[in-house]
């Protein structure tokens, strides 16, 4: 994560003048680390240590499994990357041999879950970005009742995801209000694609306002003079949008999309409650997070391997994002924005 390091900005406070600059700097570093210590210790205990344990555990096999041939408890031990291979190749260790997993077992659904997770991430983030830009544009206009609009937009954001899931579960009920209004008989929570769309719709409803607020904050930073200058030069509305709004909005937009994508890739609450990961008679909406939780109930070692794979996937996406789009997430976005404004 050093790639996202922020260049130090603030001036060191002036300490007693009798010290040399070097000693002063060392003292400030010491104070800073003391102030940061509680945060770092907390994060080490709850994040870094579990990751280390998890990776360690994923290289072993649980000793609690029962060998179907002998009917005895198999002994646990070091198995190397076996747990990872089991996931990636969708195979199980049955009777000491690698075999294709029986249908319905978590391993058999690995690539399906990868597909489902990325499908949800791509579709929801795309929808939320487009609708979010539209919402932000309306919120940015000056009209009577703008206060109501800005307050209303915060309501879906404030509702807990668990409640959102139950609420949409009710709306999507086979005899619920949506089917009644549309005069349809769609099984929104059990049909394969209908249940996927149900989750996409509910997620888009819940999260678009957040996206819109981030984009609005970006829009408000674009100086009015830039638009005036464009109007003077006779730019059309479409030209103004693509030549001025989009490039100046890009830093804010990229950060918003990055955060949303990483969030969407670990989606759990909504599918877990809305469809239970089901759909199409199988695992139609089982995201990777749901698959991990299902696996925890069976064996820890395999679940650790899967959670490590999930973690690597998400970090890979974050890395590609930051490299390709130059997402600036450490907060000197304003400086960047000013630079873009100058160029334009």
């Amino acid at each position: 994560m050093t790639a996202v390091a922020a260049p130090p900005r603030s001036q060191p406070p002036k300490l007693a003048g009798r010290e040399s600059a070097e000693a002063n700097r060392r003292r400030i570093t010491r104070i800073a680390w003391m102030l940061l210590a509680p945060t770092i210790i907390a994060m080490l205990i709850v994040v870094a240590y579990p990751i280390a344990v998890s990776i360690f555990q994923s290289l072993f096999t649980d000793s609690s499994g029962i060998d179907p041939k002998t009917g005895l408890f198999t002994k646990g031990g070091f198995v190397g990357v076996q747990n990872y291979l089991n996931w990636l190749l969708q195979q199980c260790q049955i009777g000491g041999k690698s075999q294709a997993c029986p249908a319905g077992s978590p391993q058999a659904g690995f690539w399906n879950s990868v597909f489902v997770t990325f499908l949800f991430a791509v579709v929801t983030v795309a929808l939320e970005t487009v609708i979010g830009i539209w919402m932000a544009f309306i919120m940015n206009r000056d009209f009577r009742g703008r206060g109501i609009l800005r307050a209303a937009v915060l309501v879906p954001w404030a509702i807990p995801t668990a409640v959102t899931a139950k609420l949409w579960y009710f709306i999507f009920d086979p005899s619920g209000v949506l089917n009644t209004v549309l005069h349809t008989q769609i099984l929104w929570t059990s049909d394969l694609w209908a249940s996927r769309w149900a989750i996409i719709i509910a997620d888009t409803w819940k999260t678009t306002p957040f996206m819109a607020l981030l984009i609005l904050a970006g829009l408000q930073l674009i100086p009015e003079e830039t638009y005036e200058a464009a109007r003077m030069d006779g730019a059309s509305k479409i030209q103004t949008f693509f030549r001025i709004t989009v490039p100046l909005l890009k830093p804010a937009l990229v950060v918003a999309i990055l955060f949303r994508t990483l969030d969407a890739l670990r989606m759990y609450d909504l599918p877990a409650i809305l469809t239970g990961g089901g759909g199409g008679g199988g695992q139609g909406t089982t995201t990777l997070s749901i698959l991990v939780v299902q696996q925890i109930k069976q064996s820890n070692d395999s679940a650790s391997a899967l959670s490590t794979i999930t973690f690597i996937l998400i970090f890979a996406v974050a890395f590609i994002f930051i490299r390709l789009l130059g997402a600036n997430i450490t907060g000197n976005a304003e400086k960047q924005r000013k630079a873009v404004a100058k160029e334009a």
Partner: protein
Amino acid sequence: MTTVAGPATGIAEKQSGEVYSTTRERARRRRQGRAALFTGIQAAVIVIWCLLPFYWMVVIGLRDPRYTFDPNPLPSHLTFENYVSAFDTANGNYLGLALANSFFICLVVTVIALVVGISASYALARLNFTGKGLVMGFILGASMFPGVALLTPLFKMFTDLGWSGQYQVLIIPYIAGALPLTVYTLNSFFREMPWELEEAARIDGCTPAQAFRIVILPLAAPAVFTTAILAFIASWNEYLLVSVLGNTQIQTVTYAIAQFTGSIPHTQPYTTIMAAGTIVTIPLIVLVLIFQRRIVAGLTAGGVKG
């Protein structure tokens, strides 16, 4: 109109002949009126889209269970019975307990995360030291971390400590979850503080700690308060950890809502669930509407989802 044709716009318009200017003015006003109407319609669509599902939850929460699937959009067959049965523990639902647990857990988490987070974000925003980028990257990286990856080791760790079923099982990971958000949001607020005042206090003889406590902290109060609301809401809405690490005794509201069961097996007691959902959501909606401006400022300053 041909006399004023051409690329003339804006100021040039006003300088054209009087006769034409009035007709132009009228046309312009009509165009503006139409644009305003169009904006209004779009705004109305957004408001309805955002509020309709919530409105439906409130309406159904107040409706007689026998009319659950009545599509009448207006409040009808009003009853308060669902709000009573939401707190009924006969079917294994403990909404009252869950509410008390959530308030307790979220308050503890918010207070600790703020105290720890203020000191960290002060260091990050104010002091220039070796390894700052690394720390910032570490905290941000932790905030993007998939929660599921922590579940198995945390579960094992807490079981080994003999803590399972106790509040700290949720409080400790919640603090770690709220910290990146707290540090990130406070950091971006702190960067815009008038630090000259702190220096002035130092010159007047304050110690660094005094200068921060007497001068900066009161000025930062709104930022701290905003961050507190965001941390509280984030903890209130957490579901993944509690669904695996929690149990009936330490359940939070999201756990209670997700597990909600009725007296008839395989049948969702929808009206009661909607009432329970409304009860759980109302504190947040009230918070959000009162502190709307601050919350928006905090959300966009941090850029981290609450």
